[in-house]
């Protein structure tokens, strides 16, 4: 006995049988082809979506980011809450000085929705006062000019870094707005930098559009011009690596407890929750897509079984001849099983080819950002393995029927 030889022989026979009945084989493959193509294409598109979501998440600092926001002091401290200076510029310095685990620290002085004026044109957009570290946390690239520098912070310069939304609405004619001036609340700012446009389209909407509406000025400028004090709205901190997150949270807590004179009027937020939400969404997509794919491949398997049963009854005489010249039941079983597997493997490969085509088409209709994942290799692998297994399983029953045929009856069969 030589099982490897049996399998090679069976596969060769199977292939020639599939080739000899091209149309029928193609029809019987269609279920598997569609199943695999749909599975891989859908996973590809959903993966693209999730990748964009993750990119968005990473853009905002990702899992390494901590946010410190003010809150009311706990009840027990209410009567002495006044001794805390609140969240101030001094907290930034304290964190920078005391906590080496904090790779980047920036205050956020949030002016929210501001009116930007250039000449006679006006447009609303977000405005924030930040420090140079912001670009270390939010992964933004500059197309022109530079970002806010330490010297701008020190001298409270009237400079601004703008996104493409303001550029497009206020400087229509200029691609490069660096050096131009913008008026906000009767203050003049000089544009020193301009972000690259960010785009990741999902269903025709740019999921990163708010990034393009974000504009930044030095935190010190914002504090001096808008509030006259040194309060900040929140602090963003980026850990140097994931492992240091717990220590970082503790150290930030300790540092701020000190600067706030023991008053717990701040809250440290991690990105854990958002990450959990994303994982949940990912899982629900995976399970629902998996279910659809399983059903369509099951239907494909039934198609193969049907065709194999027809093929067995069509070739009863051939089975008789093969048995008469010495084929054992085992040989006939392998022969028909191999045929079913060949159909499903070829169908699976065609399905993979079709899925690449579908994904390419989808990309033509929905121009994707740089983050889109085109070929979901894992899904292709599983689609292929799953379809081959389905073929194997659906071939067992017909192959058993063929193998069990009595050679005498089979030879007499007309």
């Amino acid at each position, binding site marked *: *006995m030589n099982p490897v030889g049996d399998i090679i022989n069976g596969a060769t026979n199977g292939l020639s049988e599939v080739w000899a009945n091209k149309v029928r084989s193609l029809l019987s493959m269609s279920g598997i082809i569609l199943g695999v193509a749909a599975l891989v294409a859908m996973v590809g598109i959903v993966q693209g979506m999730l990748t964009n979501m993750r990119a968005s998440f990473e853009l905002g600092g990702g899992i390494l980011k901590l946010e410190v926001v003010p809150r009311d002091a706990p009840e027990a401290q209410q009567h002495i809450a006044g001794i805390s200076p609140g969240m101030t510029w001094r907290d930034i310095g304290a964190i920078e000085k005391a906590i080496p685990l904090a790779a980047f620290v920036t205050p956020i002085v949030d002016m929210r929705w501001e009116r930007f004026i250039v000449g006679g044109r006006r447009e609303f957009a977000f405005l924030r006062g930040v420090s140079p570290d912001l670009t270390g946390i939010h992964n933004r690239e500059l197309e022109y000019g530079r970002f806010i520098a330490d010297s701008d912070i020190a001298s409270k310069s009237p400079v601004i870094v703008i996104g493409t939304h303001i550029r497009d609405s206020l400087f229509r004619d200029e691609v490069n707005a660096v050096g131009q001036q913008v008026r906000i609340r009767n203050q003049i700012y000089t544009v020193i930098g301009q972000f690259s446009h960010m785009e990741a389209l999902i269903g025709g909407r740019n999921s990163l559009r708010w990034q393009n509406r974000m504009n930044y000025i030095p935190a010190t400028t914002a504090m001096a011009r808008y509030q006259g004090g040194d309060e900040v709205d929140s602090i963003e901190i980026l850990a140097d690596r994931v492992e240091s997150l717990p220590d970082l949270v503790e150290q930030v807590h300790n540092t701020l407890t000190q600067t706030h004179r023991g008053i717990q009027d701040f809250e440290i937020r991690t990105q854990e929750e958002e990450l959990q939400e994303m994982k949940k969404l990912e899982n629900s997509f995976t399970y629902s897509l998996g279910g659809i794919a399983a059903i369509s491949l099951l239907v494909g398997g039934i198609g193969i079984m049907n065709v194999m049963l027809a093929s067995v009854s069509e070739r009863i005489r051939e089975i008789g*001849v093969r048995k*008469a*010249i010495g*084929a054992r039941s085992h040989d006939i079983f392998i022969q028909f099983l191999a045929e079913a597997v060949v159909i499903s493997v070829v169908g699976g490969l065609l399905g993979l080819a079709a899925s690449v085509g579908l994904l390419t088409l989808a990309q033509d209709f929905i121009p994707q950002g740089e983050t889109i994942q085109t070929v979901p290799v894992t899904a292709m692998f599983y689609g292929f393995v799953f379809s081959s297994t389905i073929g194997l399983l659906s071939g067992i029953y017909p192959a058993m029927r063929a193998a069990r045929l009595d050679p*005498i009856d089979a*030879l007499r069969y007309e």
Partner: protein
Amino acid sequence: MSQPEEIFALSKIRRTYTVGSEQVHALDGVDLKIYDREFIAIVGTSGSGKSTLMHMLGFMDSPTGGEMVFERRDVSSIGRGERARLRASRIGFVFQAFNLLPRLTVLDNVMLPLVYSRKPIKDKPGRAMNALKRVGMEHRSTHTPNQLSGGERQRVAIARSLINEPRLILADEPTGNLDSKNRSKIMDLFASLLEEGITLAVVTHDDEVANYAKRRIRMQDGKIIEDSAKGATA
């Protein structure tokens, strides 16, 4: 003169089928010995049991009673796998309907039994070509069966039955689908193969074909009623 070697020894072989509640005795106590290099014709009307006997000799079926010895070995109750092995290695079949596989070439058809005999043979195509030469069909090796005439197909089928050098070739109405010219060609071929040393049993109802055989066995109602080697028995 020494007695030729005994291939088959059947004694009191029975084959009983149950059809509904009735017992049908397709073979009803057959005693038969087949010797090396014999040419036997098995004749009889349909339902006489000649096909069942051929299935017994070809290990396609097992007896329900009696004793069957093949090459000095009791094969009365061997299993399906062992029967398949014997079919592959010791028996060659020739059918009335030729039974070549239509999608395979002549050469592949002839090589097919080698797949199942599992003998380590190096030059399978060469061996198949030799078998084709023995039946004069080597020039058609790349054709498919439907490109051949009936007589040619049967010669290819004979080449296929020869490829594993069987101990016994069983032919079931080998000329039944052929015209008289091709019929005599096939019988001449059998005669020349006999000269080369094969042993042949032909099931036929054609007296002309039966006349080629040196020994004639007539069957009726599952029994041998005449054996020219012994004279009339029943």
